């Protein structure tokens, strides 16, 4: 993950090394916190700015990001292979998104992440076909020439937020379905565990119903469903997430 637009890679590496040492060499907790807060202040500002312009004051976003950094310090396990900066960025972004989702519903994905998500969307079908399986994030990152961390963040953001532009241009012509909707509804009605939500499933749009069926009854992967329906894997992911939330709401509060 890029930690600061202004920092060079060597500056970031040196900072990561200093902090990694402090986590393991017995530096007192208060001193460690002070060091991390000082060293990663640029990361806090950078991530807060990324989510600026969506109805929240920058200083509020910086505060949320700082809170995320403090949480990351408390939660980080230096024995794991993941660098602190990667873990901290994920925690900070998580806090920022949670804050924005709570505060403003019109959150959109930052342009840079949208561009990466778009590249991922374009690369996925061919890469999946070449490999004969769903590629890892590292393989996708290598294919499109972006960092693994940026690709992870872009896909996460694209799946979390409304990103109509990312899906634009993907062939939206559904292929001929192999099962009728009546057959699908019957399967849901009769299957153990689905009875409570069967009425809500009948209220879903046809495409949502079919995607749910393909994933949970036909056990098809998201990539296979994407190819069958004619939309992107990320779009399938988002539809599944939203559909499950809809069904959850139909049977009671979260």
């Amino acid at each position: 993950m890029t930690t600061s637009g202004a920092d060079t890679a060597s500056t970031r590496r040196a900072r990561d090394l200093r902090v990694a040492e402090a986590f393991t060499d017995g530096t007192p907790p208060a001193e460690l916190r002070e060091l991390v807060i000082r060293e990663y202040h640029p990361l806090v500002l950078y991530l807060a700015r990324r989510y600026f312009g969506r109805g929240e004051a920058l200083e509020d976003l910086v505060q949320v990001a700082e809170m995320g950094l403090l949480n990351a310090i408390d939660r980080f396990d230096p024995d794991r292979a993941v660098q602190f900066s990667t873990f901290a960025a994920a925690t900070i972004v998580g806090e920022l998104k949670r804050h924005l989702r709570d505060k403003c519903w019109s959150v959109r994905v930052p342009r840079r992440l949208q561009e990466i998500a778009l590249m991922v969307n374009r690369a996925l079908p061919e890469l999946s076909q070449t490999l004969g399986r769903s590629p890892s994030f590292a393989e996708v990152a290598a294919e499109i020439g972006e960092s693994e961390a940026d690709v992870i963040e872009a896909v996460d953001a694209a799946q979390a937020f409304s990103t109509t532009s990312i899906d634009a241009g993907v062939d939206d012509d559904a292929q001929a379905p192999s099962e009728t909707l009546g057959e699908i509804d019957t399967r849901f009605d009769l299957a153990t565990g689905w009875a409570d939500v069967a009425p809500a499933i009948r209220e879903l749009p046809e495409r949502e119903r079919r995607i749910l069926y393909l994933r949970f009854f036909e056990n098809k992967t998201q990539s296979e469903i994407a190819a069958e329906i004619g939309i992107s894997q990320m779009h399938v992911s988002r539809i599944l997430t939203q559909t499950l939330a809809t069904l959850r709401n139909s049977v009671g509060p979260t």
Partner: protein
Amino acid sequence: MWISVPATAPSIDVLRSVTAVVAGHTTLGIDRVDDLRLAVSEAAGRLIRASEQRGTLRASFAERDGSLHLQITLRDGDAPRWPLDAEADPLSWIVIDTLTDASEESLDGDDPSIGLRMSFRRP
């Protein structure tokens, strides 16, 4: 590695993002990382509902035996009934069970817990 968040509905977003980052840095395919995110949402939701949003959720990640293991445990909360088993809240269990390679409700000491496993190679 572990993360601890309040056992409240908004925390699910944080857990999903951290799961995406940790799982994304493994060799799991993008499809499977997303399956795990969905399963984590349901597992966290199950624990949150069982405890009526009291306590904290601790999610720990470990790579071993060719798999990514994730354990989500409710701490300092009170879930009067645990394990819930598949008949209670069946939708969330179907999602968890379908999307992961192994899943289990258990007690970690006295704390309600859900374990999830994703193999790096499909069994």
